[in-house]
């Protein structure tokens, strides 16, 4: 963990520091903010908790140019301590996933497949991405709903959306699958959405936050795959398929708790197929991919295909997301050219190459879903 790092970790924790010192209303007014308040609050709390372990030069370190942060001998201790916060969520996710095993052997495989998964190690231990927190909370909420504790489950799903918004995608579907009557479905949906909105309410009144959030390229990714239907109007492919999944679930899977993880898998898979997701986002789907792979061992080959094509997606990004993550080890690696830079020097429009990589990744995800469908029908 201390040998790798990414500037996002440093800037995110620096923002969390500002959040605590400025107060959240001032913070949301004066900074370009992307995450909901609970994300900053949690990271700020952790930072204050470990303050006595951080070097005394930490405030100065935060304001250094990124390369100097990596060159500094304090970077090892700082990156290690900051990323240590994610470790309980990482182990917690492995533990919860193992609970989905139908016997001891399956539980053991599920635990191992998560703990030693290269994608988890890459996004959480090496990169230090925040995504492990909503991933943990969402799989925990699915588990609680599965174990007939829906109130806690839906509440946690709302809390998960306070870190990143994607768990909201699972909220209506989970309500439809887990509850038989429409009244109960609405009730559970509200249990999930009310804590989310109430915690977000103070900052929703800040126009700066809304402008930053709605104009962010990442926020609008979900709309990018679309079909033009004239008069400047579009059919959004993700939304179209998402609604169809809800209708299908409402008709055929209502009350079928065994489908909870499978439907979550399909919804997130459609998201990855229709958007140029950033590499750390892939963590969201991983628990569901691993669970289905262990349920149907014949899917293992397709799972490996997804992991390999994911590597191609990483290569569409600059060096700091691949070999540049080792910059604390050797700061010179931060801007070392790898395949992306090579392509950009030799290919006129490298975006075409990146599009091919994305298409390969989408194909492997579709193949996995198709394979899963056949395997689940047979069983």
């Amino acid at each position, binding site marked *: 963990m201390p040998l790798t790092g990414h500037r996002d970790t440093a800037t995110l924790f620096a923002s969390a520091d500002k959040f605590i010192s400025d107060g959240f209303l001032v913070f949301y007014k004066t900074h370009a903010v992307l995450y909901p308040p609970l994300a900053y609050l949690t990271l700020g709390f952790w930072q204050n908790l470990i303050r006595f372990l951080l070097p005394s030069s930490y405030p100065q370190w935060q304001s250094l*140019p990124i*390369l100097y942060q990596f060159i500094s*001998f304090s970077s090892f201790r700082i990156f290690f301590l900051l990323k240590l916060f994610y470790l309980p969520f990482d182990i917690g996710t492995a533990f919860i996933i193992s609970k989905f095993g139908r016997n001891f052997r399956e539980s053991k495989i599920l635990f191992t497949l998560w703990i030693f998964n290269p994608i988890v190690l890459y996004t959480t231990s090496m990169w230090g991405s925040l995504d492990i927190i909503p991933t943990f909370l969402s799989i925990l909420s699915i588990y609680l709903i599965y174990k007939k504790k829906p109130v806690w489950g839906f509440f946690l799903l709302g809390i998960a959306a306070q870190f990143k918004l994607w768990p909201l995608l699972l909220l209506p579907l989970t309500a439809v699958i887990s509850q038989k009557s429409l009244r109960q479905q609405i009730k559970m949906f509200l249990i999930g959405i009310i804590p989310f909105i109430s915690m977000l309410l103070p900052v929703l009144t800040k126009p700066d936050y809304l402008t930053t959030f709605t104009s962010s390229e990442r926020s609008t990714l979900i709309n990018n795959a679309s079909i033009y239907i004239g008069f400047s109007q579009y059919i959004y492919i993700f939304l179209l398929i998402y609604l169809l999944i809800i209708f299908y679930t409402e008709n055929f899977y209502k009350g079928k708790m065994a489908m909870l993880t499978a439907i979550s898998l399909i919804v997130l898979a459609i998201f990855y197929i229709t958007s140029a997701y950033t590499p750390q986002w892939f963590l969201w789907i991983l628990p569901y991919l691993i669970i289905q792979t262990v349920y149907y061992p014949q899917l293992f080959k397709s799972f490996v295909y997804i992991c390999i094509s994911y*590597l191609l997606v990483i290569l569409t990004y600059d060096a700091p997301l691949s*070999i540049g993550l080792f910059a604390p080890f050797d*700061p010179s690696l931060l801007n070392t050219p*790898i395949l992306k830079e090579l392509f950009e020097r030799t290919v006129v429009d490298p975006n075409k190459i990146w599009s091919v990589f994305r298409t390969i990744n989408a194909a492997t995800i579709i193949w996995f879903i198709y394979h899963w469908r056949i395997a689940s029908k047979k069983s």
Partner: protein
Amino acid sequence: MKKTVLIILGIGLIIYISTQLRTNRMDLSQEYDNTNFDLPPGTFLEQQIRPRYNNFYRIILTKTNNPIIDSKTMIADPMRFEIINKMSGKTIREIKFSALNIPVLEKLSFTFDPISDSAGKTYSFRITSLGKDNKNLSYVLTFGGTVSKIDRNLDLRSSNNDDIIGALAFRSYYKAPVSELTVDSIQDFINRFCQDKYFTVIYAGLILVLVIIYLII
């Protein structure tokens, strides 16, 4: 088994390609960039530098303005980049270029024949605008840097302004075989890692405990 071998070979190939592309390593850098230094025609900017390694062979100026991005009339003045040995005062490397060559990515890179005995010696790199002084010129090349002195070895001189204090934003590189670069990387890492003694001891202890637990299980 066959699949595992294929996966390992695939990952190995990517690592191999990545390392083989790397025949150089960063030596020095000045990353602060809070002011701009102008380079009007007929003037020069000269930055002192003392490489730590032999085979000093590249300078990248990390922040320049860009006529294309700024939508200004481009100047095609001839420019000269020189590496000067401060001891002898002689120019030992020279590159001529046009302001038109300044790349779109806002980084200006100068690669020259490696200076084999550069370690510990004082050099300067000088960028001269060879155009005639034109008072009506609407566009002047500027280079990012800082006015606060960071290192006494990084003095900046400008023929345009005698009072200038500061340093350009730049990175310098040296060239070496992969094996040598790897040894340098590891040595540099060990030096930096061991400076934080408490952390080094605790982290090494933690790794040791984990290895023992793994062996017992």
